[in-house]
């Protein structure tokens, strides 16, 4: 059924102004996970990094897996949103804010992890390129410093990209809210009035941001891949790593987006806005990324196998046949075997089907990050230096806390702003019947014709265009 602008605002602001017990239960669970992480981190700070399972030769493991994983998850949001905005895809409107929020939160979590890994995390500011008292600048030749700049740029851009379309919605909430919320939204809206000049500037800025953020997003995960690829270590020193990581990042990010949308739809009662058509479109994208990911995985493994280098083959066999084989085949199952039928067969590409596929993919992609890092470090060039790695409860708790923090930030964000951009949704459906009944008293003008305004259409059709 077609909706009026008033109904759209009421529906989307309802979850912001009111919360049920399910919401607070979810906040409690995710908050507990974060608290567990705070405890584990405090324990680590007190006792030192020795409480992690790291030992020679494996000095990167769970934490760097989490870092790469969260940076990857951050990929889909802003990147997908920017591409859909530039392509002017009508169906993007209910999706973009959910996606952009994922980017900002996942990137923030990803950026925290290297700080946990520092050993002396209270000296994290040494990562910032500034001359220390010994006048030694950080080494610009190190990929770890490239990470700093890439994440800084991407986080800045993504936060602005998320914030800009919130301004008009915050202004709406400001004028409709009372008490402390009114003051909060007055601050968030920056005194937005909604005059045509402001709208044009906002749209222009959004357009530029969409153009700028795509290459930045690609560069971020490429640079994360170079943390590994710049090192002459078996199965890391590969030219395919840049695009392979970008592909994997988009893959896991789209999966996370679908999962987040399915949960929001259910718990915030956004069924009329996050429609099956959105999951269908994103499901097709996820299928494409699944196949592309498999192509890269196969290409990488085939090249290694064909080259038959002794050091590389030891890593290769450890992941395919030996101690990491269960994880490897779980990864293949999660990333290809389960999702493929669910996403390829139209009958299964439902909300439930895409959510199940996304869940397995998120798990599979975490395993993929782990398998890139640990088997290689366990099997470097010299067999006498080989070793094994087992995570401790501290690392596992920190990993769980990462997921808890993502859920908690997302939940708190959904309490602060509508999870669907109200003004963009209204602009998208303006041509649909929602305004028609209000406009019949006036004859159409040339302006309406110039604007290409179409006659009455159902809401769902218009959004899925």
């Amino acid at each position, binding site marked *: 059924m077609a909706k009026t*602008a*008033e109904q759209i*605002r009421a529906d989307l602001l309802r979850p912001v102004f009111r919360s049920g017990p399910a919401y607070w239960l979810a906040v409690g669970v995710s908050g507990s996970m974060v608290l567990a992480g705070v405890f584990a981190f405090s324990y680590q700070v007190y006792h030192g990094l020795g409480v992690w399972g790291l030992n020679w030769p494996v000095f990167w493991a769970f934490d760097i897996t989490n870092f790469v994983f969260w940076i990857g998850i951050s990929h889909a949001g802003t990147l997908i949103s920017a591409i859909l905005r530039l392509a002017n895809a009508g169906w993007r409107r209910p999706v973009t804010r959910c996606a952009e929020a994922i980017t900002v939160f996942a990137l923030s979590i990803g950026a925290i992890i290297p700080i946990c890994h520092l050993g002396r995390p209270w000296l994290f500011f040494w990562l910032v*390129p500034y*001359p220390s008292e010994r*006048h*030694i*600048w*950080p*080494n*610009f*030749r190190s990929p770890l410093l*490239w990470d700093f*700049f*890439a994440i*800084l*740029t991407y986080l*800045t*851009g993504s936060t602005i990209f998320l914030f*800009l379309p919130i*301004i*008009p919605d915050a202004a*709406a909430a400001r*004028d*409709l809210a009372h008490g402390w919320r009114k003051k909060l939204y007055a601050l968030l809206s*920056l*005194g*937005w*009035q*909604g*005059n*045509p*000049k402001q*709208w*044009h*500037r*906002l*749209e*222009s*800025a959004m357009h*530029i*941001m969409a153009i*700028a953020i795509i*290459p*930045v997003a690609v*560069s971020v995960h490429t640079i994360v891949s170079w943390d590994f690829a710049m090192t002459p270590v078996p199965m890391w020193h590969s030219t395919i790593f840049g695009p392979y990581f970008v592909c994997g990042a988009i893959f896991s990010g789209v999966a996370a987006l679908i999962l987040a949308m399915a949960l929001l739809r259910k718990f915030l009662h956004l069924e009329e806005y996050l429609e099956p058509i959105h999951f269908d479109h994103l499901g097709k994208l996820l299928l494409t990324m699944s196949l592309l990911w498999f192509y890269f995985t196969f290409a990488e493994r085939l090249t290694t196998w064909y080259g038959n280098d002794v050091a590389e083959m030891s890593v290769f066999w450890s992941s395919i046949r030996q101690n990491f084989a269960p994880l490897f085949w779980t990864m293949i199952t999660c990333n290809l075997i389960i999702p493929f039928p669910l996403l390829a067969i139209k009958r299964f590409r439902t909300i439930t089907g895409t959510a199940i596929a996304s869940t397995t993919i998120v798990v599979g992609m975490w395993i993929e990050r782990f398998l890139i890092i640990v088997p290689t470090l366990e099997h470097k060039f010299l067999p006498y230096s080989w070793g094994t790695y087992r995570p401790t409860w501290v690392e596992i708790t920190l990993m769980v806390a990462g997921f808890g923090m993502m859920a908690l930030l997302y939940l708190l964000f959904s309490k602060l702003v509508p999870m669907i951009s109200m*003004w*963009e949704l*209204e602009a998208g459906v*303006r041509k649909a019947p*929602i*305004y028609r009944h*209000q*406009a019949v*008293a006036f*004859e159409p003008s040339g*302006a*309406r014709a110039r*604007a290409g*305004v179409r006659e009455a259409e159902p809401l769902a059709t218009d959004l899925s265009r």
Partner: protein
Amino acid sequence: MKALYALYSDPDAAQRAVNALKLSGGSLGIGERQIVVVTAEPFDGYDFSDEHSQTRIFLLASLGGVVGALFGLWFTRFTQLAYPLPTGGMPVVTSWTNGIIIYELTMLGAIATTLITLLITAGLPHFGEQLSDPEIWHGKILVGVTNPPDRARLELESQLRQAGAAEVKTA
């Protein structure tokens, strides 16, 4: 701030109101800056909106990118030459790796300039008094005149009503 305004459900009616106000503005002593349109969403394709579409934000963002690139170039060269530490057989000033930092700072420059330009040209933040009405969030378009001369009030009311407004309000 005093104002006289009307709310319209239809953008065509709002356009008619704006046209009428502009036509009679000179004789009533109203400048174009006093005519205010406020909407809850962008209305591209209407003159009252499109006359504000000219912007240099793209050019300024590009310039911001250039500034970011130049800063990146200076920053990487300066720091490497300030402490010339040979690493991994690479030259002291490593163009290949510096290119990555320069690229990121280029994009950061463009992004920051876009935000700054938006804020300045859109007049944000603005926490002073401004003409608005909660009805705009229910799909109405506000067309009004700020600080109208007293002698022109009746004529303005009449024009706003003729364009299709059911009610003319004052603020």
